[in-house]
């Protein structure tokens, strides 16, 4: 039984989402209405440039997915089989860090370690496929580890005991216990990472972007901002849309992603000293790969022109813009997510699980229609009528909120569904509703996942260098855009200091929001 107070706000959010996605799409499809459009523009479909961009997009995403997920299997297994490893929880928290590190900061970090003047020079230029792969692995290896690790923890303890009783060796345990569990999650994880790399913008923009290493996303941006060729941008956006839809459909078909929740329970399995040493070596190597770039960006920045950057007005203006966009997008995304999840939880509880799933999926529409495609559509739709640069904040905030919505659904969804299933009947029977239900039930039990959702969306929007690059101007620049502008002007030391400011701001805001909204982590119920 779902009442109107749950259905109406959710339907309003769904209509708004449909408008935000469909209106720009209509703009894209109305190719003939574009300024300066000529029928010959469509010949671009057959150009070598388009084929090269398409091939590079798929190639870099495939390589990035394989290079991230295959080592992640080994590292996740090492973590799973070493439950008593000192600082294991700290290391796993470190592996969550790349999720909140802005892409442009990660690029700076990767360059400062593996660049020609870096701590561990890679030996070849990072500007091209090599750099893009290193940066994508930096982001996605830890994510894949955190997604795969629960698969080991889902293996029942009795199975481990049985394998021990049957005298299975490490290979046999892998074959009969671990691989069957892993096999279920692997296609979903691979496709998710593939999708993230396919739509990766900031990394390719800063480390690629040349004629040989441009992806569809970056090509859309270049067509709009540098070549002033909306028709070409539309063709590229439609191609990207088609590709993303294909991947999203495959992901949906194969997706069996576990919750990214690392439990403390661990398998009991006897291990040889050599096995243990290899596991520890794998964990240490992965930790260095993830941790060192972040450390290096901080150390390099402290040796740079800190005072002159901090005294610049542009930095402070960018900080204000960054916080404004981040916090506004988070409030929008969490509000929309809350109403959707309230409705989907009540649908699921009433036995309409298919409809509940559709409502949740609608909130993740941005996986199918990339933000840059939406941005391009908005650009095309609005540019004949208004100066889009005047609309930068509403556009960037709303698209970032849309990008944050899947995270809200993932963070809050399970807790809200559980709360509803456990307490809805009780609340009905004692007439606990409205404000009192929120105050005595939902706020205390949901404030932690709510805090995580708000903190995540805030820092993701703060660090975004996608939509803001399309619409931003020096006056509306965020820190991420400022770093990109500084890199473009070869002000590398200044960019490093700005990257440090953005990194510290993101980490600080994340910790502050989690603490302020989520309350004391140790207060167990």
């Amino acid at each position, binding site marked *: 039984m779902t009442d109107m107070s749950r259905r109406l706000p959710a339907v309003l959010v769904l209509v708004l989402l449909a408008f935000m996605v469909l209106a720009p799409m209509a703009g894209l499809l109305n190719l003939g209405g574009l300024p300066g459009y000529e029928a010959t523009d469509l010949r671009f479909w057959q150009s070598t440039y388009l084929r090269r961009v398409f091939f590079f997009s798929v190639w870099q995403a495939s390589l990035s997915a394989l290079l991230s997920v295959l080592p992640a299997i080994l590292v996740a297994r090492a973590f799973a089989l070493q439950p008593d490893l000192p600082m294991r929880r700290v290391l796993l928290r470190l592996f969550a860090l790349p999720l909140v590190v802005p892409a442009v900061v990660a690029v700076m970090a990767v360059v400062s370690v593996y660049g020609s003047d870096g701590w561990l020079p890679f030996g070849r230029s990072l500007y091209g496929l090599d750099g893009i792969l290193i940066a994508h692995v930096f982001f996605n290896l830890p994510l894949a580890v955190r997604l795969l690790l629960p698969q080991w923890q889902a293996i029942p303890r009795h199975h481990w005991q049985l394998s021990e009783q049957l005298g299975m060796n490490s290979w046999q345990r892998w074959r009969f216990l671990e691989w069957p569990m892993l096999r279920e999650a692997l296609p979903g994880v691979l496709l998710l990472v593939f999708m993230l790399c396919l739509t990766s913008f900031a990394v390719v923009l800063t480390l690629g972007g040349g004629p040989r290493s441009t992806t569809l996303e970056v090509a859309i941006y270049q067509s709009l901002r540098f070549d002033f060729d909306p028709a070409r941008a539309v063709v590229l956006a439609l191609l990207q849309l088609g590709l993303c839809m294909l991947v999203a459909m495959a992901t949906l078909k194969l997706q069996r992603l576990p919750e990214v929740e690392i439990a403390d329970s661990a398998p009991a399995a006897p291990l040889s000293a050599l096995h243990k040493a290899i596991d520890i070596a794998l964990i240490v190597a992965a930790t260095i790969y993830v941790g060192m770039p972040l450390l290096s960006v901080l150390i390099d920045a402290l040796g740079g022109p800190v005072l002159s950057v901090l005294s610049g007005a542009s930095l402070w203006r960018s900080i204000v813009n960054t916080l404004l966009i981040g916090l506004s997008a988070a409030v929008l995304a969490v509000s929309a997510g809350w109403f959707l999840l309230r409705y989907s939880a009540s649908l699921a509880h009433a036995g309409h699980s298919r409809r509940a799933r559709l409502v949740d999926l609608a909130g993740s529409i941005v996986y199918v229609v990339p933000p840059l495609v939406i941005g391009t559509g908005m650009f095309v739709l609005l540019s004949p009528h208004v100066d889009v640069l005047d609309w930068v904040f509403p556009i960037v905030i709303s698209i970032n909120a849309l990008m944050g919505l899947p995270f809200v659904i993932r963070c809050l969804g399970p807790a809200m569904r559980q709360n509803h299933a456990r307490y809805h009947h009780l609340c009905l029977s004692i*007439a606990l509703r409205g404000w009192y239900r929120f105050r005595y*039930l939902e706020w205390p*039990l949901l404030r932690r996942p709510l805090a995580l959702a708000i903190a995540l969306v805030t820092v993701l929007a703060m660090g975004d260098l996608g939509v803001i690059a399309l619409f931003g101007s020096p006056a509306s620049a965020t820190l991420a855009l400022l770093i990109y502008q500084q890199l473009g002007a070869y002000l590398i030391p200044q960019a490093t200091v700005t990257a440090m400011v953005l990194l510290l701001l993101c980490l600080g805001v994340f910790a502050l929001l989690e603490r302020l909204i989520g309350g004391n982590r140790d207060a167990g119920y």
Partner: protein
Amino acid sequence: MLVIERLEFAYDVASAASMRFELEVADGEVLSLIGPSGSGKSTLLNLIAGFLPARSGRILIDEVAIEGFEVAERPVSIVFQQHNLFPHLDLYTNVALGVEPSLRLNGAQVETVREALARLGLEQLQRRKPGELSGGQRQRVALARALVRKRKILLLDEAFAALGPAMRAELIELVKELVCEQGMVGLLVSHQPRDALIASARTAFICDGQVTASATTAELLEQTELPELRNYLGSM
């Protein structure tokens, strides 16, 4: 008195097959409902509580039909097997929510909560949280809340299933006392025939969505001519 008249329900709205209940329970009586899993015992409680909408039929409490009432308006309290208490609130607050969800209690209401906690032997524990209690103590708190709500009908949906035999017997005795004291009507769903023997002079056997037998508990448990009941008791 609780009277259930031709109360029909189907999980699948389009389905012709439906559950159909007829029942009468007197004031001060605890009627036990036994039957196989999926037979409709909990469905009947959910229909009385208003969690599920009946297709047709009547639910009369002291001759007032309540099937059109909202859940909170029904003179019904329910105790589930688990998740009866909010884990982040202390016992006092969990019980007080049953009196007034705003928790703005006047002196008399505070006294009511205190008395209920004392009646259930929980006065020393009122500032504890549910996580610090045993399973039996948690169900006592749920009963205390049912007590302060002063509702005519008390539904117990396998409320004591997770407890050991001695604790179950103790709590069932307590329920009998409370129901008798307050002139309530109790309905106890249980999988254990032994619970029915302790709780009820009369027991109903539910199978395939209807009450197929109803008699004194001892007689019902002795009946061997009804094949469904024989199968059910045989599998215990």
